[in-house]
């Protein structure tokens, strides 16, 4: 049964993850009064890129080619840790939430290295901002994970279904809010990063993969969409702990709906807000840390 | 008899601090050496060990050491003055203070009950030590410093003799040997200082200290 969970988690993510990109962009287009790209646009893009050849810079080393594989591989491995339908993954164990954070770290480390590998100042700048945000967000992520681990008791990701969330509404709301912000930061969305600006200088995540092309770019895009899916899953599970009580099939549908909802919310936020000034972002990240800390405090000292 | 010797020793110490000639000082030290090394013979029953020790000590303290000092005096061409940092009247005053302090010490030490010697006999060695230290501190000539050191050593020897502690033959002889070597080495050193700097005034040796180096700071 636990092995089925792994299978379903990975399969659903691999199939549905690029869809979230489409949903977000349709919502944004709807707000802007445009028609917008097709829902399956990212699938088309990936399929097209897979068939294309690559352009490599003469500066790059094998690191540049290894990075996309590692980015995708680490997210996939992170996905096999995720529980589902009220039971833990076969790979789940006590402390797997820490491993999850570190697994996501590998992808980032290699993405930054690949960016520096090109020797491009744009990509260096993107890398500088990306790792800065990541460094500030890490304590918050760990505290949110601490909330998850202690509220369910098991100190593992399966305690996402601990169901204690509603005893402690304040803690749950704060944790879910913090997780939502972490989702936005880590996936480089507005208000922290704008992937759609017209200048390389103003992007963060997108500029880091500026020199990737062909299958490399496809893998990078796919890995990012899986990452969006993974964080979306965490947001849904923290906000709705009772989802674990649903019957097996209903759970997966609910999950899909929930993550789509997160994607819709992302679209709304992106349409309603502008990006924060770059120098203010560390302060806002500290605010997220405050939220996570408060959530933990509500849980521990109730 | 014993008390007389002690009085003589104390007086000689006072003389030391007041005398202006190195030659006199050396004579006094020789006399003190004779006194302190022969004193044990007067107080205890005599065995061979003690006798040999006393004779050797007397020989070294009254003859060999003064002769070596005279020799280095001659080599260094020392004139007679002691060259004090402190004037003679003040020296005597300080010496008297030292004597009273030594007497106070002797009363405080409470050795009289246990060993049955008088306060004066305890005070005398201490006074000798103070005098020795005082000579080292207050006189500039290196030779006077050696004299002061010998006086100090005599004081220690006397203290041992007075208390009649079980004489450790080896230890006493060892100390004697040390003193001998010390005087010998300082004799050589004085000769070299003299040759290098044309004087044996240690006060002028301060120019060798860190002062000048730091002065350029």
């Amino acid at each position, binding site marked *: 049964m636990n092995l089925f969970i792994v299978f379903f988690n990975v399969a659903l993510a691999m199939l549905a993850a690029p869809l979230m990109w489409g949903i977000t962009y349709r919502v944004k287009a709807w707000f802007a009064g445009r028609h917008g790209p097709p829902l399956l646009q990212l699938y088309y893009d990936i399929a097209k890129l897979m068939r294309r050849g690559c352009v490599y810079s003469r500066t790059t080393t094998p690191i540049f080619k290894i990075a996309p594989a590692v980015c995708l591989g680490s997210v996939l491995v992170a996905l096999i840790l995720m529980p589902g339908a009220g039971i833990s993954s076969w790979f789940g164990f006590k402390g797997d939430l820490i491993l999850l954070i570190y697994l996501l770290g590998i992808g*980032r480390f290699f993405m930054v290295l690949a960016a520096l590998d090109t020797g491009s100042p744009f990509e260096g700048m993107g890398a500088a901002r990306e790792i800065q945000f990541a460094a500030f967000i890490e304590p918050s992520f760990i505290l949110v994970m601490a909330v998850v*681990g202690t509220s369910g008791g098991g100190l593992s990701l399966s305690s996402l279904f601990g169901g204690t969330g509603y005893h402690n509404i304040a803690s749950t709301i704060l944790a879910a809010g913090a997780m939502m912000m972490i989702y936005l930061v880590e996936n480089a969305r507005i208000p922290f990063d704008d992937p759609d600006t017209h200048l390389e200088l103003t992007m963060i995540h997108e500029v880091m993969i500026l020199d990737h092309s062909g299958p490399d770019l496809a893998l990078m895009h796919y890995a990012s969409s899986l990452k969006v899916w993974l964080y979306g899953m965490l947001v849904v599970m923290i906000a709705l702990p009772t989802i674990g009580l649903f019957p097996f099939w209903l759970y997966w549908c609910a999950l899909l709906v929930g993550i789509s909802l997160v994607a819709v919310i992302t679209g709304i936020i992106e349409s309603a807000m502008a990006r924060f000034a770059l120098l203010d972002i560390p302060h806002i990240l500290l605010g997220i840390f405050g939220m996570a800390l408060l959530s933990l405090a509500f849980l521990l000292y109730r | 008899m014993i008390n007389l010797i002690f009085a003589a020793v104390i007086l000689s110490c006072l003389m030391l601090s007041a005398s202006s000639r190195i030659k006199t000082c050396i004579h006094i030290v020789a006399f003190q050496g004779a006194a302190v090394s022969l004193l044990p013979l007067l107080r205890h029953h005599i065995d061979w060990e003690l006798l040999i020790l006393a004779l050797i000590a007397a020989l070294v303290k009254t003859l060999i050491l003064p002769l070596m000092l005279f020799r280095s005096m001659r080599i260094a061409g020392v004139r007679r003055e002691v060259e004090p940092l402190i004037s003679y009247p003040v020296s005597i005053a300080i010496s008297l203070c030292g004597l009273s302090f030594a007497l106070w010490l002797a009363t405080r030490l409470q050795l009289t009950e246990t060993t049955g010697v008088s306060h004066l006999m305890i005070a005398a060695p201490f006074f000798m030590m103070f005098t020795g230290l005082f000579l080292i501190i207050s006189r500039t000539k290196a030779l006077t410093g050696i004299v002061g050191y010998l006086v100090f050593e005599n004081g220690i020897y006397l203290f041992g003799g007075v208390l009649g502690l079980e004489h450790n033959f080896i230890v006493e002889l060892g100390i004697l040997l040390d003193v001998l070597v010390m005087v010998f080495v300082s004799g050589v050193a004085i000769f070299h200082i003299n040759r290098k700097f044309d004087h044996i005034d240690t006060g002028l040796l301060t120019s060798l200290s860190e002062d000048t180096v730091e002065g350029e700071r």
Partner: protein
Amino acid sequence: MGIFLFLIALLLFCGFASLLRIKGNNLIGIMGPIAAFAGGMPAVFTMLVSKSYIQQSINFPFPFGLCNFEFDIVSAIFMIPLLLIGMTAAFYGGCICKPEHAVPGRPIWFFFNLLMAGILLILVSANTLMFLLGWEIMSWSSFFLICTYHRKNEVRTAGIIYFIATHIGVLLIITAFLLLQGQVEDFNFSSFLIPESGIASVIFILALIGFGAKAGLVPFHVWLPEAHPAAPGYISAVLSGVMCKVGIYGIVRILLLMPEHQPWWGWILLLLGAISAVYGIILALAQQDFKRLLAYSTVENLGIISMGLGMGVLAAEYDMPDISRLFFVGSALHVINHAIFKGLLFMAAGSILNQTGEHDLNRLGGLLKRMPSTATFMLIGCAAICGLPPFNGFIGEFVIFTQGLECLTHESWYLPAAAVLMLTALGLTGGLAMVCFSKLAGIISLGEPRSRAAEDCIPVNPGLRFPLGILAGLCLCLGIFLPLLLSDFMAWKISLIFIILIVLCTGLYFWRRKLAASAHNRTGITWDCGYVGGSNRIQYTGSGLVQPLTRFFKPLMLRKKSVKIPSGIFPDKGRWSIIYDDLILDAGYRQLFDAIKNICFKLRWIQSGHLNRYILYIALVLILLLIWELL
């Protein structure tokens, strides 16, 4: 037990033999640590498996008397870095054959062997005198090793700072042992009485400062960032990987010698550790000299170990013995792992320094193409030190993290608060370490070279691949297989997941290669917006990469900025440099010592140079003592 005493003798012999002017003396010096590794490792592994305890008493001549020697699991854990890093560093040192390194050859191996013998003596002695003897040997020999290139001014300065720090430390350690000793006649640890709690606290604080100075805990870390850049790379590897750990060993030993602990000891260890970790990594990421960067990262890692110890003490005080034990296990794992990857990084840094002559990482770049093996090993070391799976840095931090989460469930107020503090500090440290080491790896080995020196550098002597390769291989192997040793939770799954990760990434890489091979690939230049005047200097530098963070943490550092703006009709060269220095050294200790110096200068008249006056001082002191005694 006997094997270790034999090894001490062997190391001493090799050390002295390497001083002889005979052919192959350097080889003898190198063989010492290697023989120690071969001889000591079986005993260490036997101990780790059996978890027993060996004791032996030997009667030494006069000043020592009957000395106990003990070898237990704690000694065994700290023995692993000593033997392993000692062996690889000796190997590495032996392979360096550039003439300027061969000149100070003989004394290096003498002091190297002596250093290892001293540390070995510390680890096995259960006797104050023997412990302190080993400590002194370690301090002295490491001082001479740091001053290997003593002709350079900054090396001598570093040596003096180390010298002062280590001697203040040893003073406090001796005091602590004397207090612990109390009135007991012999010097063996086993005959110590249990001190009362007030005295025990004083002992703990003294030992913490003394040993902490050796371990490099903030604010006693100031010698580390000076000494490590000054020493040759493989010496730094031993200093950072082994000698700093001996400081931690001392703290652990003191904790074990005193059966009853106070909760606030745990708090102090935790706070010092948290401050060291965060402050260390912030300064590390701001550095431009890559060996200084590594030195500060040592401060950070020892902070992590200290946090683990502090939480261990706290958890034990709050009746959670299992969790406390696991905290100590986590710290021990990190001790071993840190020695391995830091040794690797220091040796790689040494190679880079030798080949390019550049201290400043902003002037390097593209070394992965020019020194492929060294740069690859360095990348592995960087990944490991960030705690990234599947390398070995992960497991120690993982255990500490997990136990921190366990502590959150305790019902008291204090333990969860401590755990939250630890989780935050560890998380922030982890995030910043990622920045710091992507900078180190990325700027040095990737991109284009930023200076002539980096452009023209040639690969190292192929023999150097072996010591680095051994350590890099251990980083990976220990990362995968160490979790199997942790029977307390289902850690074998970690190993399994790591293997899946490696297989998956490799598979994806080859799949991608196949895909790319079937299409038409081109090579070109990096995207530059069509700008034609580009040079290698327009690349992002290391300082640029961390600028957002150095800007944020500016108040914690001392910023030294020097700018020269080009001016005139035909402007000459401009210059811009910012260096971030240690606030604690420059604003703290330097001010303190300046104040002490001023007071001392005011008292200089005492030191007049008159012999007479010195004797007067002695006489006065003697007389005062007499009066004081008799009154």
